[in-house]
């Protein structure tokens, strides 16, 4: 699974967690501070993910 982090760095995970929520916990990211896009679509944290998926994590900038 390809994970694109908010700083644009990419990490490839061979064993993927079952859901977006579990992935965020693994990465130490608080779900209320980010949006997650799976294969180009915005998804909620309960969404299941698999080894072929591309996950993009978008940090929500504060202020404005």
């Amino acid at each position, binding site marked *: 699974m390809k994970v694109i982090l908010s700083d644009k760095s990419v990490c490839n995970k061979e064993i993927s967690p079952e859901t977006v929520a579990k992935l965020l916990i693994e990465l130490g990211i608080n779900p*209320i501070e980010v949006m997650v896009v799976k294969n180009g679509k915005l998804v909620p944290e309960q969404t299941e993910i698999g080894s072929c998926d591309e996950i993009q994590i978008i940090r929500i900038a504060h202020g404005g």
Partner: protein
Amino acid sequence: MEDNSVKSTDDVKITPSCSYCEDQAVFYEPIRKRHFCKAHLIENIETRVYSTITESKQIQSGETVAVALSGGKDSTALLVILSRLLPKLQGTRLVAITIDEGIAGYRTETMRAAENLTNQLHILHKTVTFRDLVGKDLDELLIGREKQACTLCGVLRKKAIADAAKTSGATVIATGHNLDDEAQSVLMNALRGDLPRLIRNTGTNQSSSFLPRVKPLSSITEKEIAVYLFVQGLFTHLPECPYAEYALRADVRSMLATLETQYPGTMQNLAESKRKIEQYCSGTKVMGSLQFCRECGDPCSGEICQVCRIRHNLGI
């Protein structure tokens, strides 16, 4: 823009559906444990904002609303939502006001975003700079005083917005403060022991000297706002203010985000506690009587207003 029109069978199996229809969810609301698709999220947010505006009479028919538009996500969402909702309130008019504080590497992009949005929505847009107001950019004012950034900037920005709103004929100022901001402010004021600020309600026109300042997004979370913009193709990656790291708010925000995840509803409870304290203190005198600054004549709570005090302290 998010495309919900095509759904493969596999997607349906592994992405939760909206709690109100068969479409795929884009957002989960943990307090009431509901999923929202794009259409229902937009409808839910706009309905809640309309309730906030009308139930507390923040904006009424015939008013001219000055929207403080930084170009960031919150004020962008506010302007988009008000441009959709206000036609329901006959005779209302919108004007957007952007303050260019003079922060290198930060303001250029957000100023451009504000300009593009107002052009797109055909809304009158006024820009005021700190250089117009006090003769210097914020970056110049803050050399060696970075820790005072938010206090100093907040006072000057409030003054610049109020002046621009008055000259635009506005009857009310709307800001993009969201639920997260409100909860953070409650906690910060409690930590500082600042009771007057904790119970101050700027949304009511208690004095003819001030334009009321209202917060139509105060029941909407920061994440809801981001998702609202994202699903409509309106979310852009903009930089954060470089001075934000110096503020107490940054620590409070981080702490509250952790608490909200562990105990959903924490931020809503904090904002609600402010309303209860306000009601409890209603009629109680916690602030001094209104005075007028001996230097500039603006209304204030002491002999000299905060803007003139800053001018003195900085020698400007």
